């Protein structure tokens, strides 16, 4: 099994045009085997682009194709509206990879989904997406770095370390059920805890690799969840051990102020929760080898 998406998931790509990022990655997702059933574009309803039927809006796409997931890569000024349009159309799983959405837009969209659309799960924004190995890939992950068959689940805040971690697992022959890139923005739709809870409930996932980074308190919250609620082994790596305090390292998620949110504090919290903590992505892969070997 897998979490959140599988071979039956039908994806609508929001904001599809012949030159959009959505088309480039949507076609790669389709080539991976993902059911990309529709695209939307208010100016191109009725057209077909690369064999993908285009509708003027998500509601029309859902009505015609039964799409239950969406992929958003539209520019930041339009992303929050696209997320809400998907939710209003009844989409259950929205993947938004857009980087650079204003924090207040994210906060409004998140709280609106919580209040009015509790059955819609948002992944991202500013994330690589999700890949259920061999079944469904929504987002920008290169599909060939994933290895189907489980038993590992992967959840990551950082995008490129997500790829690195998938690759490390695959290189070591450890298959994945699902890899979830939650993104590094201030208000992610899906948290570490959401993904960990789903992996805990998934019978085919036997162990989880978690990739965090400095800043915020999401890893500490995950540590609490792992300690109290998880029976499956977890390995973790936190990027930014050597980052100087008080400096913004590239995006909103990665800033430390004072002793709060440092890699050290996060690693200690995770260790105390029984997690095996690695010093780098390669070592994380090696620790997963040990964990998988000891699975009953």
């Amino acid at each position, binding site marked *: 099994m897998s979490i959140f998406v599988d071979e039956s998931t039908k994806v609508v790509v929001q904001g599809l045009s012949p030159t959009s*990022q959505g088309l480039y*990655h949507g076609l790669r997702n389709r080539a991976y085997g993902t059911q990309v059933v529709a695209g939307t574009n208010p100016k191109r309803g009725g057209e077909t682009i690369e064999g993908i039927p285009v509708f003027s809006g998500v509601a029309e796409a859902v009505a015609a194709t039964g799409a239950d997931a969406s992929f958003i890569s539209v520019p*930041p*000024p339009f992303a929050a509206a696209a997320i809400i349009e998907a939710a209003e159309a009844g989409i259950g799983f929205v993947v938004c*990879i857009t*980087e*650079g*959405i*204003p*924090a*207040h*837009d994210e*906060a*409004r969209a*998140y*709280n609106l989904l919580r209040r009015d659309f509790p059955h819609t799960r948002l992944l991202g924004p500013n994330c*690589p997406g999700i890949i259920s190995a061999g079944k469904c890939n929504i987002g*920008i*992950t*290169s599909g060939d*770095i994933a290895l189907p068959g489980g038993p590992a689940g992967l959840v*990551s*805040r*950082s*995008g*490129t*370390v*997500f*790829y*690195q971690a998938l*690759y490390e697992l695959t290189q070591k022959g450890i298959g994945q059920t699902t890899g979830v890139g939650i993104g*590094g923005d*201030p*208000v992610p739709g899906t948290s570490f805890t959401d993904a960990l809870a789903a992996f805990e409930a998934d019978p085919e996932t036997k162990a989880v690799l978690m*990739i965090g*980074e*400095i800043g*915020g*308190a*999401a890893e500490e*919250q995950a540590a609490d969840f792992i300690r109290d609620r998880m029976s499956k082994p977890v390995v973790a790596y936190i*990027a*930014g*051990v*050597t*980052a*100087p305090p008080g*400096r*913004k*390292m*590239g*995006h*909103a*998620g*990665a800033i430390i102020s*004072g002793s709060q949110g440092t890699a050290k504090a996060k690693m200690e919290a995770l260790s105390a929760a029984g997690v095996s903590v690695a*010093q*780098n*992505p*390669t070592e994380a892969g090696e620790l997963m080898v040990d964990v998988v070997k000891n699975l009953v």
Partner: protein
Amino acid sequence: MDLYEYQGKQYFARFGIPVSPGGVADTVDQALAVADEVGFPVVVKAQVKVGGRGKAGGIQLADDAEAVRRHAGAILGMDVKGHVVERLWIERSSDITHEYYASFTLDRTAKKHLCMVSARGGVDIEEVADSDPGAIARLHVDPLDGLSAAAAAQLVAEAGLHQVAREQAAVVVQKLYACYEEGDCDLAEINPLIYTPDGRVHALDAKVTLDDNARFRHPEWDQFAGTETTDPRERLAKEKGLQYVGLDGFVGIIANGAGLAMSTCDVVEQVGGSPANFLDIGGGANAAQMANALEVINTDDKVRSIFINIFGGITRGEEVANGIVEALGRVDISSPIVIRLDGTNAEEGRRILAEHGSDKLEPVPTMIEAAKRATELARGSRP
């Protein structure tokens, strides 16, 4: 983007938050002119984006022109924790009866806005939070609901502000929320928010951080730009749209994505090297971005080797490779380059690099091995 105090006050004023009359000055003469205009006594305040300027002597009261001349002369050029004072804010001095604190920021854990109000302003609020957390009243604000007048009134009462100040303070808190929300701030903080003997509540300081992602809908922010970083390399990188932070080491780092860039620094450190910088070329970077990144790193004399660590997702391997080839043709890169390239179109990228056949360029298959090799090359070439 962090604002200077005077910019923060200008921003506050747009939302109707009362601030003292004042003006900026870059010279002693300008300071005198501003002081004349606003009327004595005045406060001469160093404009730096770092705390502790008061303790460093960067805030002085001046009763007359002679005092303005003396203080402005002393403060301009002053070093406050590595920040050189180039600009002053001169404002009418305020008499203070009470000092309060008010702020809005995003609580990432609650995923709602957090308003904090305290009757103990004018001091380091983090110390108050540690020593007497009960002295800070907190309220989570759902962005869908906003902050009602009743909620603001209740919060200032809970914080224990003096009766006489509450009505005005509640109005200021609501205006501060408007500034924070409509004004797309990551942080909007007033410390101190004062109550004067003549019965007015107003902002004596302003700490504002704007959300860079919201810049597209705030053309008025252009006036704040260009005053942020003093490091020439950081400025160059910023102009080119690169996320760069200078560090102390000797291995130049280029990676895609903040996480991988940090991770690359970690690994270099772990194999005995030392990163000279953090540089994230961003998601979806193209050839030009890679060439720009190499140019920025190339201006750093400390750099003895360069480690390019790319795992393509939205970033495509052939673009990365073309950028490296372009940069090698455009500028004389002085350090050897170790490259590790995986992910989207990595094979195509590796082929382009192999065809180029530069002896400056060494492809290495894994992140750890590449970090080791870059460190080795750096050590070998150290004078």
